């Protein structure tokens, strides 16, 4: 029998603090959709996606209602598009992307991830097709998300790929200039890309995964923030250790909810349950913010000294609580700090409290990287590449996933405000200091060798 206090505390978390399941992502292996003719590829792709995913949205809604917990986003992730584009060209890539877009719309999901190339050690012909088609793909589709892995602990940092992506990002921005470069918001550039990440834009179906699997992204930072505020209102003389404990307990409970929903959805769809991703993913909604947690932890201006330590504590406590709650933890599993998607972070940028370099420092202790950052549209490709390289170095050396989602906003300069709408939020354009001062470094090209950490055997 459940105790009354247990029921009451869960009710408080569910309803007063708006606990939800942030993402249920059905990952599908589509390697068997490869075929000599692109029309054939697209037919197979559409049929496979629709037959496996047509019940996803309805199942998530029904299971969510049974437990009184909404599933906010339902998504698809597929094997890297490069695996089905081998032997095909640019036009085929765009046609495949349009097919994915239509299949996602038919299933009622909001995004489909996996327009992906894995180029950490080198770029194959199919990878080049994927990378070079991104300006068209991301400007001509709505729901397709892309990712490119340019670095790994085992391979080092592929500077040629990074340089190329610097130019690709500018072209995507130009192709979506009427949406302030929004196409770039659907592309993540990774080091150590996870194979089971449920969060967009970086979700894809990794090579070591089963035929189909359900991966879960748990509720956002609002629940953790409310739990901290409640504890602080109730007790005096709390230490950071006490607050870390509160985060840990909340993370445990949030993770359990995610796994409960995920396993039931997977069972109903007849697919394997994959992982729970513990990441705290903010939304532009007031209160659903990692920045707000930092403020609650006593950092009055986000970006002030102490911000990195506070993020580190938050990230670690989230992992500890989640890891004990579930034996199937994976994906990114950290705290995200996406600037435009987090109202408090965007505000800190606007106030001049938070600069790119401090954000970079914070990403060394959390997930996932320089995320949803609007930069001036005239930032040189080499400077963008160098920013990516810095972030990749943090991931490779620290043996963690890092990522970059930069949006060069055509015609915009530092301080201008851009609004991407909905979950993508709004942000001031961030100042890039020392633009143009990294060209020679980037032009050397080649690959930064794998670090000592790669020799773990």
């Amino acid at each position, binding site marked *: 029998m*459940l105790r*009354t206090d*247990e029921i009451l*505390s869960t009710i408080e978390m569910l309803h007063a603090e708006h606990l939800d399941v942030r993402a249920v992502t059905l990952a599908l292996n589509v390697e068997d959709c490869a075929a000599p003719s692109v029309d054939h590829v697209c037919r197979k792709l559409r049929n496979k996606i629709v037959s496996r995913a047509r019940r996803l949205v309805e199942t998530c809604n029904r299971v969510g209602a049974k437990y*009184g917990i909404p599933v906010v986003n339902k998504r698809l992730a597929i094997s890297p598009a490069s695996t089905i584009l081998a032997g095909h060209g640019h036009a085929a890539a765009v046609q495949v992307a349009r097919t994915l877009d239509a299949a996602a719309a038919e299933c009622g999901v909001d995004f489909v991830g996996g327009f992906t190339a894995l180029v950490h050690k080198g770029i194959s012909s199919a990878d080049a097709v994927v990378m070079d088609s991104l300006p068209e793909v991301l400007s001509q589709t709505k729901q397709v998300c892309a990712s490119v892995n340019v670095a790994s602990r085992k391979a080092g940092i592929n500077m040629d790929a990074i340089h190329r992506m610097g130019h690709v990002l500018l072209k995507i921005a130009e192709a979506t200039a009427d949406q302030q470069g929004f196409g770039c918001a659907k592309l993540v550039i990774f080091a150590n890309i996870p194979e089971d990440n449920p969060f967009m834009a970086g979700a894809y179906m990794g090579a070591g995964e089963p035929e189909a699997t359900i991966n879960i992204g748990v509720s956002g930072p609002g629940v953790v923030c409310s739990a901290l505020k409640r504890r602080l209102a109730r007790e005096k003389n709390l230490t950071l250790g006490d607050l870390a404990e509160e985060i840990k307990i909340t993370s445990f409970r949030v993770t359990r*909810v995610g796994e409960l929903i995920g396993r039931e959805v997977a069972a109903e769809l007849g697919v394997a349950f994959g992982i729970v991703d513990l990441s705290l993913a903010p939304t532009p909604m007031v209160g659903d913010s990692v920045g707000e947690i930092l403020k609650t932890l006593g950092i009055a201006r986000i970006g002030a000294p102490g911000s990195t330590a506070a993020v580190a504590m938050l990230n670690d406590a989230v992992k500890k609580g989640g890891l004990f709650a579930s034996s199937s933890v994976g994906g990114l599993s950290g705290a995200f700090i996406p600037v435009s998607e987090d109202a408090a972070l965007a505000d800190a940028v606007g106030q001049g409290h938070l600069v790119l370099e401090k954000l970079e420092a914070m990403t060394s202790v959390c997930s996932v990287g320089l995320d949803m950052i609007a930069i001036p549209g005239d930032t040189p490709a080499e400077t963008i590449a160098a920013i990516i390289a810095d972030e990749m170095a943090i991931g490779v050396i620290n043996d963690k996933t890092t990522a970059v989602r930069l949006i060069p906003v055509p015609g915009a300069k530092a301080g201008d405000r851009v609004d991407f709408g909905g979950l993508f939020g709004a942000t001031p354009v961030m100042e890039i200091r020392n633009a143009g001062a990294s060209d020679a470094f980037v032009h050397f090209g080649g690959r930064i060798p794998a670090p000592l950490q790669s020799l773990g055997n």
Partner: protein
Amino acid sequence: MKARFDNVYVLDVMSDDHPGIVAAVTTAVESLGGNIDACSQTVLGGYFTLIMIVSTPEPVDPAVLAEQVRQAGASNSPFQVMARHANATPRATPTDPCDRFVITAFGKDQPGIVRRFSQYLAGRDINIVDLYGDRSGDEFVLIGQLEVPTRWDIGMLQTDLEQMGEELGFTVKLQHENVFVATNQLRLSYSH
């Protein structure tokens, strides 16, 4: 629960709450050679209530058992006692397959809240296995743990109850119990 002896009784005791009630009651039971096979107590608003399953090697008149326990109470705080023969199967097991749900209702207190919800549940053969209600300030909170026959569409029950709550100015939720198990208990009692 399997009783130790063949003669099984259900014993119910109510009193002002104070230390020593359980000691007094169990001493009286033991004086008749009785064994306590199961017991549960609760204290609500300063009042103590205890229910016990008691078995004895020899038959005892329930009235004698009740009187023996009554005598154990202090004169300034008498026990109200009931005793009767217990049936082998205390209540009919629901014939329909059921699933466990929790209903929670919060709102401004007024007479008739528990009646409205319990009448609705009774009309659908939904068994209340545990009930908690508390008035704090003007607010009333009601929590019921329920056995809901699987033949019902949960979405319909949720809509009905939420509508009823709206009419009464109450926030009502009906949720499967596993979400409470998952968020509170270390070892999960449901299978994945």
